């Protein structure tokens, strides 16, 4: 497993020439990133978390560019937005004609805590080969009201209950990052 922490590199264009497992991860990041899959047998996992506060404004573009056949890429971005935070996401999956038997996935899930947040999500697909499996999904909404109520009934304050649910929402990614990158330090879970 090769790890790439996008927060710790200035590189934005990545060429994957050798088969193997790759794990790309990031936290609160803006920019334009290209992932060029140029060999077969690549298993690329791209995971990112956003916690937006106050006037934070993130603009992210990702490009999963499948040039070689028989590779897999899987992107998951989760965002939680408070205050007047803005998030503008544009994701593209492109499968070239020769990239048969590719698997490409893309998912963006956002939670809006405040009414003043603005989220724009644009997950695009361009498929030129036929023997492929591609899906993308995007959801945006609030924290589950029933769950919030339940936690409050158990004695948590509204803020604690929110934090608890936000924690659960991002833990899918945070836990994965911690599992591979043992020394990873972040303030991901500590917004009170």
């Amino acid at each position, binding site marked *: 497993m090769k790890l790439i922490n996008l927060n710790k590199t200035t590189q934005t264009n990545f060429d994957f020439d050798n088969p193997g497992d790759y794990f790309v991860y990031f936290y609160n990041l803006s920019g334009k990133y290209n992932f060029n899959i140029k060999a077969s047998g690549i298993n690329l996992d791209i995971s990112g978390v956003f916690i937006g506060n106050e006037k934070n404004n993130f603009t992210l573009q990702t490009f999963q560019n499948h040039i070689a056949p028989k590779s897999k890429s899987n992107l998951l971005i989760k965002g939680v937005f408070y205050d007047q935070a803005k998030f503008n996401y544009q994701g593209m999956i492109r499968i070239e*004609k020769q990239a*048969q038997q590719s698997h490409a996935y893309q998912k963006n899930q*956002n939670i*809006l*805590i*405040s*009414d003043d*947040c*603005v*989220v*724009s*999500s*644009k*997950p*695009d*697909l*361009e*498929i*030129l*080969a*036929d*023997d*492929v*499996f*591609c*899906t*993308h*999904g*995007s*959801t*945006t*909404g*609030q924290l589950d009201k029933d769950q919030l109520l339940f936690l409050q009934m158990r004695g948590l304050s509204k803020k604690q209950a929110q934090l608890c649910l936000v924690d659960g929402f991002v833990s899918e990614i945070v836990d994965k990052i911690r599992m591979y990158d043992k020394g990873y330090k972040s303030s991901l879970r500590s917004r009170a």
Partner: protein
Amino acid sequence: MKLLKNNQFKPGQGLSENFVTQLSKTKKEQDWMRKQRQKAYDIFLKKSLPKWGPSLENLNFDRITYYIKATDKPVGSWNDLPKDIKDTYDKIGVPEAEKNFLAGVSAQYESEVVYESIKKELDKKGVIFCDMDTALKKHPDLVKKYFGKLVPAADNKFAALNTAVWSGGSFVYIPKGVKLKLPLQAYFRINAERFGQFERTLIIAEEDSEVHYIEGCTAPIYTTASLHAAVVEVFVHKNARVRYTTVQNWSKNIFNLVTKRAQVEENALMEWIDCNLGSAVTMKYPSVYLTGKKARGEMLSIAFASNSQHIDSGAKMIHFAPQTSSRIISKSISKDGGRTSYRGLVQIMPKAKKSATYVSCDALLIDEKSRSDTYPTMNIKTSDTKVQHEATVEKIGEEKIFYLSSRGIDKNSAEGLMVNGFIEPIIKEIPLEYSIELNRLINLEMSGSVG
């Protein structure tokens, strides 16, 4: 348009300011409409072509005839029609009289008797159903009140073009509380005219009314014109319900660039059902403006592109009011080098609290020459909302084909069966006579025969 039969207005190809004025004069229109046409022409000149989407390189505005009289026929006789069009008519089983009409050989179609009895029924209820030119003469106030209010000429280049040179199209007015059980079909109305190139359709459904409007037909419509730029405006007032079904199968030399928009008030419902099979290039994104509390919008669409066709279609749902909901279901099939693109927009404005939207796009790729794209956009400006989008692209399952083959069904029929199954959720929403023809047509596209 019958009025024009004996006049001397014989425009050739190309467009000019003088042409627009002449057209309006020939139609004996009021000043406001002539001015609107002239203004739209100026806008048309200023606007540029869209910088996204399919290539419109082959579209030459100077080589288009902008006004065709009712009596002009694209072809002189049945024998002059291209062979593939004739074959399709035979294979999907279009009756002889209808065939001649659709092909443009005959300008008269024997539905007049049927239409007359329906017309009596409609008159009794106060429903107005006529072509736009007639509506402009008989109900100028109604037309003036709504015309261009939802799709202004400045909306896009083709809306401007349509506003400048429109002819024909339907005008539908449903009075308060009237619920029409029988669908209104453009098909009945256009018996005396030809399918318009620059149709302008206006539907007004007053409070508590209900109507289902159907345009197009499954049989390929042959025309020598290369551009179809229609504008459709639908006003759905409080508690009303409008369903607008389109089955489009233009011959494969047409640029089909259509602007369709509906405004939906409190507790009302607008449903677009859109099946696109024909044309060389289609660009069409019916939109719904949800302006009243609890308004609902729906879009069900099918796109089938083969043989270097490019169908770029989708939907726009703009939520302005609280508790509004929308749903978009899009199914597309690409085959033999065809390309389908879904392009959509969902926008939740700050005031649209407790609104919900669901978008689902499925694409089927039949072979390696074909292409499928998905370009959805979601803009969310409030937290109290639920937005979901999902899309899948895949090919026909080999195991399923193998299974069907093992039961004695040949590969082509099996593929046809699978494609018909794929679009079934939408097909079941359209009237039976259309869905049967559509199924046959898809089988024909898949295998070259109807069995």
